[in-house]
């Protein structure tokens, strides 16, 4: 039994949250600093994790396994592979940046804010490291409550509606998952996710397997969110406080994608293969529909929110392509499937960095202008050159410009999926065009170009130091991974090839 690094990463924020409860609520600066300091521990450890993960060996590493509820064979079982390591790191990075940014922008009920945020962080880590269904489900739901409160208390004008909608949608999805988990338990006798991936429960009963598949798929598709389960997202993302939107888009959406990769694809390959065209079509609709809806938005934050629907569509498309590859026996299809999965996972990571950044940027302009209405801006480029520059880089990364991080995920998904499901994938390219459209036309043109309204926006100031510090790490990743994606791609590849090898 080595050093329990995953447990420490997972539970440090929760312990920090409990400690914060004992701070006097007037000492806001102390609370802020304490929360940031606490979040540095998992950040450092998850960076270490990335280096310490043995890529030649692959598989689940840093495993901890202790019996939790002996009566029903539930284990505290955690471990990480090449898919979860980047996700854990992403969680750490965005959380720390979120705390840092919030230290300057959240002034009300600071104690509760950080308490909830730290709890949320533990919930997110838990989902990425859990290898037992009950543990997975516990963490899955635990994150729900803090996010609900974060939206409801610190959100925008329509926050109450957005908060309850978020909660009910996610809960509705996850209760079906619970039933499917129980079903797996009664067929395999255990809640072990890895074991379930070996025995493929309900393999002899396609009806039950399909039911379980859809139960899991809907739970995850709501979180992703994939069309037609996406309607909670624009409300939640638009109303949440800035750091909340960053976490929502940056990490919570990945929980759904991660579930598809960790549970649905390995455990239900047969039904997934059968239903892959439907799933791929949902991915395609998300891409195209999401992108076109973005074109019609005039609220900047809502626009970014819908862009997440489109970007997550690539992930769904990539995973569906991998499932569809099981229709073919030739090894070349396995390879394409692994490429598509690599793309999907890279897209998850990069979208977290890029869209997280975009939501920070939206928050920054809203703090100054108190509006997000694209129609009232114009010509800000000359007034806010630094901000303009950062938005340009992030926006171009978002539309998938080669040389920036966003390119790789989309490229690999298309490369992999085109081989397996060419027609659906070909239509997906439409989304790329539309993305370029709304980023350049809506965001860049309406905000930064055109005539400048001196009277209205003359008082705006460019980015402050803390805002720059928030964005720098993200920009570094966008550019760094854009030019040299190997560190990310290699670690992901160990997991995806292993995954496809087992199917």
């Amino acid at each position, binding site marked *: 039994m080595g050093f329990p690094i995953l447990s420490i990463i997972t539970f440090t924020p929760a312990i920090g949250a409990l400690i914060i409860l004992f701070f006097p609520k007037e000492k806001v600066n102390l609370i802020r600093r304490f929360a940031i300091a606490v979040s540095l521990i998992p950040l450092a450890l998850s960076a270490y994790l990335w280096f310490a993960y043995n890529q030649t060996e692959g598989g689940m590493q840093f495993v901890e396994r202790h019996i939790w509820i002996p009566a029903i064979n539930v284990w505290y079982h955690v471990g990480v592979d090449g898919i979860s390591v980047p996700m854990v790191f992403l969680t750490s990075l965005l959380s720390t940046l979120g705390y840092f940014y919030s230290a300057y922008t959240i002034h009300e009920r600071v104690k509760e804010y950080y308490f909830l945020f730290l709890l949320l962080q533990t919930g997110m880590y838990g989902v990425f490291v859990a290898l037992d269904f009950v543990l997975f489900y516990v963490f899955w739901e*635990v994150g729900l409550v803090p996010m609900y*409160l974060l939206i*409801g208390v610190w959100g925008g004008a329509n*926050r109450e509606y957005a908060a309850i909608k978020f909660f*009910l949608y996610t809960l509705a999805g996850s*209760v*079906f998952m619970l*039933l499917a988990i*129980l079903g797996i338990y*009664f067929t395999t006798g255990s809640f072990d996710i890895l074991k379930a991936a070996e025995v493929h429960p309900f393999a002899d009963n396609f009806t039950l397997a399909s039911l379980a598949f859809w139960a899991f798929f809907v739970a995850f598709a709501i979180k992703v969110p994939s069309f037609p389960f996406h309607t909670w997202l624009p409300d939640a993302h638009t109303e949440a406080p800035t750091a909340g939107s960053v976490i929502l888009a940056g990490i919570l959406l990945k929980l759904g994608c991660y579930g598809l990769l960790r549970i649905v694809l390995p455990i239900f390959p047969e039904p997934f293969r059968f239903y892959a065209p439907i799933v791929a079509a949902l991915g395609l609709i998300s891409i195209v529909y999401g992108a076109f809806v973005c074109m019609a938005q005039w609220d900047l934050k809502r626009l970014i929110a819908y862009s997440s629907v489109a970007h997550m569509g690539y992930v769904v498309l990539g995973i569906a392509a991998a499932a569809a590859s099981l229709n073919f026996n030739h090894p070349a299809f396995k390879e394409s499937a692994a490429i598509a999965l690599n793309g999907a996972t890279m897209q998850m990571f990069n979208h977290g960095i890029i869209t997280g950044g975009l939501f920070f940027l939206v928050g920054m302009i809203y703090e100054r202008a108190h509006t997000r209405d694209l129609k009232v801006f114009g010509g800000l480029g000359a007034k806010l050159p630094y901000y303009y520059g950062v938005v340009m880089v992030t926006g171009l990364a978002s539309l998938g410009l080669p040389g920036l991080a966003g390119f790789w995920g989309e490229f690999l998904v298309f490369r992999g999926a085109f081989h397996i499901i060419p027609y659906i994938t070909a239509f997906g390219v439409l989304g790329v065009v539309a993305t370029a459209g709304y980023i350049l036309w809506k965001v860049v043109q309406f905000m930064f170009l055109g005539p400048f309204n001196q009277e209205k926006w003359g008082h705006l100031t460019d980015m402050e130091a803390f805002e720059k510090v928030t964005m720098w790490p993200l920009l570094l990743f966008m550019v760094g991974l854009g030019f040299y994606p190997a560190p990310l791609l290699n670690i992901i590849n160990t997991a995806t090839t292993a995954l496809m090898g087992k199917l």
Partner: protein
Amino acid sequence: MSAVEILQAFAPELVLFLGALVLLALDMAWRRLGEGKEATILSLAVAFVILSLLLLLGFGKASALPIWGMLASDQFAFFFKGLALIGTGLVLLSSYRYLEGHTPYRGEFYAFLLLVTLAIMLVVGAVNLLMLYLAFEFLSLTSYILVGYLREEGKSSEAAIKYFLYGVTASAMMLYGISLLYGVTGTLDLVKIGPALASSGAGSWLAFPAIVLLLAGFGFKIALVPFHQWSPDTYEGAPTPVTAFLSVGPKAAGFAVLARVFITALSRFQPEWVSVLAGISMVTMTLGNLVALRQENIKRMLAYSSIAHAGYILIGLVCLVSGVTSNFTGLNGVLIYLLAYLFTNLGAFAVVIAVERATGSNRIADYAGLVKREPLLAGAMIVFLLSLIGIPGTGGFVGKFFVFGAAIQVQFYVLALVGVINSVISAFYYLNVVRHMFFLRGEEKPIAVELTLKWVIVASLIAVFVIGLYPHPFISLGTKAVQILGVAF
């Protein structure tokens, strides 16, 4: 059985009875209690409950044989007796100074709470239909008195009258059911009824009416649809600690009797009563949740929510499994659910009592901004509400996990599906309270919370988390308790 053995097995009940008499005598001696005296009475009452609990732990499982063929002190009864005593302890503490300003007669209140607990302990141990009926009536009568305790207040009297009218009707129907069984089998002993029914030709066509009639009596105590109509008005009008007690004590007793009678005496007709109960379960949870959505008074909301929970719990009884090596026997889910529900609901009601004493109101709208007024209340309440929804990490999840698990195991998928959909619906009205407490602004005057109430809230909070995070001992307890009924292994 020797006299000593009988005395030992019966000791917890005797102590409670003695306690009630002592409290009544003291109350008479100290007409019109002052504050100090009420504290003394309360401490005494709690002491008797604790003593009874200790005796139960010591001798509760002393013998499997029923006393005089009437009262069992088996594991199953032991579990429910413990449940009742813990619940009473918490309710006693929540009641302290609640009646001040409502009525001058405060001492007997505690005595009646002990008596109603005694009644529950008799009900859950009864293995003879006559004993069962008498204990049931004892329970009903003491409950009527407690519900109507605030004589000066119209709502309390209305609550008691409604409870009484529904109660006597239900009792009469139950008695008719008992008489049918007795007529067919010639015995009142639960263990003997089963074989007697099997050998009697008339048994099969009389069994179904008997099941339905008995169900009326048991269902009334549990508040199953369609025997639930009394509960919203009664819950609203009764003194809030009594409401808290009604929502857990008699409900648990009702489930205990339902399980014992149906499994021991009517096991041959399991397909019949399972289909009836499955229908009732679905209707109960759906109706409870849908009507709860529209409630503006928190006590009424919790009343409908408690109807809905009865529906969930019933799933466990419907999906009874025997002879399988599994820890999902259905019935153990019932027990675990009831245990988690006890702490969750008593905790929630303790918060309701604290708010009611500060604001004089039970309207959900008056919970606005509660987190500013007293963070402990709002923080605890959100945990209790999440436990009622069944969010993991809380006891409520473990209960739901076991009843839904049982349903999946016996492949009653529709029942499980209706159950989980209902959980989602229920989230809406529970979170409405959260919305008021956390999202909305209201009065900002701090709320002072009575120390004993704080104890109850904190103890319930801890219990909800312990059951939720480390459920193993409670699962074992529940699983062991149901073995006596021949369920599992």
